[in-house]
């Protein structure tokens, strides 16, 4: 098992390195650079060359890449040209927002999905099953920006229950913090519930059809025990992978929801880095997101390993 974990961490590092190389390379192919944006409509070819030289943009990209990579090893992500501050600092500033949003949305989606998914798998083809299947369809079909606007207009403007553009950090108090996140997280959760619910329901149905479920019934165990002690545990293995990936996705920031609800999260930082060709910043965020995804999938694998006796035993045997 230890070997397995070490192997996983090693391959994670390789993934991160490959991603860093590819993004840097692709960025060099895209037209437009920071110097051009700074000069704007006053640019002339000689002026542009001078500024590129001053900013070090005229060196071969591989040199710029290696220099950046060297910094990365010293945990120096470089300096954003746009904000003139350290990239790592900018990412860390945004992390609490993005993390709060991701955790809260996933929690809401999980509560709804596990409850609805389990019940509708047990009571297949009843009203509640049809209801939860429509939730799946609607959840995945509605565009988040649209439902976000509806929320703003109804709960923000008409009822004035929630602030429209005031993000309050946790340091302002838990209530105020959660209140400022209630709308965006609900909107995100609606989107995530569709996929999560589908996966839980399918997996639950699959588990309930297994022979050992009949075995348990024959044995005379109570329904409650069967469902909650045995079925859920085994049925959660597949959905946990889905949930893990959904969480990783949200940790990378959510451009649309962050824009609609004016949240200072990673998604918008990424967007502005792209728009302004702030290569150092962009590269830093991409690295960070890659690390989050790789790390999440590592954790998910470990959880699955702990949950699933078969995998646990097999790796132990290695």
């Amino acid at each position: 098992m230890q070997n397995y974990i070490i192997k996983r961490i090693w391959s994670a590092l390789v993934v991160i390195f490959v991603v860093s190389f590819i993004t840097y390379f692709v960025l060099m192919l895209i037209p437009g650079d920071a110097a051009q944006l700074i000069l704007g409509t006053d640019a002339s070819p000689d002026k542009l060359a001078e500024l590129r030289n001053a900013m070090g943009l005229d060196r071969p990209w591989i040199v710029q890449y290696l220099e950046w990579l060297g910094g990365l090893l010293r945990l120096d992500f470089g300096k954003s040209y746009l904000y003139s501050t350290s990239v790592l600092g900018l990412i860390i500033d945004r992390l609490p927002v993005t993390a709060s949003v991701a955790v809260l949305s996933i929690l809401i989606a999980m509560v709804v999905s596990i409850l609805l998914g389990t019940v509708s798998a047990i009571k297949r083809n009843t009203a509640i099953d049809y209801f939860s299947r429509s939730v799946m369809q609607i959840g995945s079909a509605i565009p988040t920006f649209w439902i976000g606007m509806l929320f703003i207009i109804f709960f923000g403007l008409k009822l004035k229950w929630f602030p429209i553009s005031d993000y309050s950090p946790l340091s302002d108090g838990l209530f105020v913090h959660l209140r400022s996140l209630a709308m965006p997280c609900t909107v995100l959760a609606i989107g995530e519930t569709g996929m999560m619910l589908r996966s839980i329901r399918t997996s639950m149905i699959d588990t309930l059809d297994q022979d050992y479920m009949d075995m348990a019934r024959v044995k005379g165990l109570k329904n409650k025990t069967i469902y909650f002690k045995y079925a859920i545990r085994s049925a959660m293995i597949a959905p946990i992978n889905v949930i893990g990936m959904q969480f990783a996705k949200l940790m990378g920031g959510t451009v649309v929801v962050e824009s609609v609800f004016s949240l200072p999260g990673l998604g918008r930082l990424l967007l502005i880095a792209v728009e302004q060709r702030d290569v150092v910043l962009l590269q830093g965020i991409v690295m960070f997101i890659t690390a989050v995804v790789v790390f999440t999938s590592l954790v998910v694998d470990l959880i699955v390993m702990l949950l699933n006796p078969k995998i646990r035993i097999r790796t132990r045997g290695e």
Partner: protein
Amino acid sequence: MLKKVLAVLMSATFVLGVAGCGSSKTSDEKTTETENTGDSTKDTLTIAYTTDPEGFDPQRTAAISTLEVTSNIYDTLITCDADWNIIPDLAKDWTISDDGKEITFNLNEGVLFHNGREMTADDVKYSFERLQDAESPKAKMYANIIGIDVIDPYTIKFTTEKLDVDLLDSFAYPWTAIVPEEAADNLKTEPVGTGAYKFVQWTPQESITLVRNDDYFGEKANIENVQYKLIPDMTSQLAALMVGDVDITEVTADQIDVLNNTDGVKGFSKPQNSIQILALNQENEYLSNEKVRQAIAMAIDKDEIINTVVWGNGTKIGSHLPVSSPYYVDTTDVMPYNVEKAKALLAEAGYPDGITLSLKLPKTYQTHVDTGTIIADQLSKIGVKCNIEIIEWATWMSDVYTDHKYDMTVVAHSGRLDPYNFLSRYKSTSGDYISLLSGDVDDLLDEAVQEQDEAKRKEIYAEIQKILAEEVPCVYIQSLSKFYGLNDKVENFEIYPIDMLNLKAVSFS
């Protein structure tokens, strides 16, 4: 294990329940807060903005978003009011030599930088040298200044190489801000100026905070605090204005009526010093033919564009100057809308069966994208097929502006006081993406910038405008307006012909 899962679920439900309770409680608090700020004690002006500025160094950026904020933190030697009049600022008066090549400013005494040091002629000299150096985007515009002499701490003389009759105007732009040398390295994040507002804090992607400068040398600002609040989404901006979270926000033309019919808010619209053009690349095989360009000009119904895209809030133009410029002449009848004639011109040029051109539109500017879409439809009626490509601003800058790799594009030019700075890009030698390759305006432009007689200068600029209208390096569409939504209490809000948004006069009723 199961117990743990249940515990997590239960605590999650609990947290959500609490959030629900908390919301009703805090919403009450919020309402009373809003009521409190509603009376005359309101001392914070909140402005919504969509994109972060590129820091606050006025001499290291071309971003209007930066300059609109920095114009409140820094001052310039002279400035202009909303009606294009040049008025004194850091300089109390000035004299121009008879040959027009020297200009001497007398500075106000006792002007303090926000760091407490007095501003003198040495700072002016330093700031202009900084404006002319390699890292400054505007250096080219000031290359004509060859001498900056400090005569005494409150007198400074600028000498130009060639006569430029519009020289005075160039001292009003917000990038000529006077900055202190000791703070110059960090101006991007820690701006220090002499302006009516002092910089307090910038939280990237959240807010910018300014506070009134109580040591300001002129009339002090009316409102104590200014907060810029980043709200990227237009609908959210409007909603924030309506609940009173922000006092000023930019809106689109169609929302002006809605705002005027809503309690507590009002719409504000005014023609802006900005013109929208459809640039035609004269290096293109078809577009190098003047007749083709004229055909395109005549096939475009500018009224339809203005009515559809900006809901009638624009003024049709025929050449490259905004209607609000004192040098503007009406040339809209030179290439009037006439589909039949346009078809005939295209046939005359040798393309009776039509041509195909690409039309690049900058995604960041919805107005230009909408305009381009309508133009594509209008041109299809004379057989000019447009392949629309919607591109990012950075791509527009590199492909269209720098490399001239385009057939047609829709964009706006703005923010210059004097006609020379608007029109000099048409010189055949300028290398600009819309320079007039026939060279027919080169001599006239040289003449205009040297002509000290105002009436004669006006005549020359009128001639240039006419030539541009006839030779159609661009189709000139409209003079754009700017639209804002304001809280009812906001008074004295104005927009300016140059890239600044002066807040010191703004007050609450």
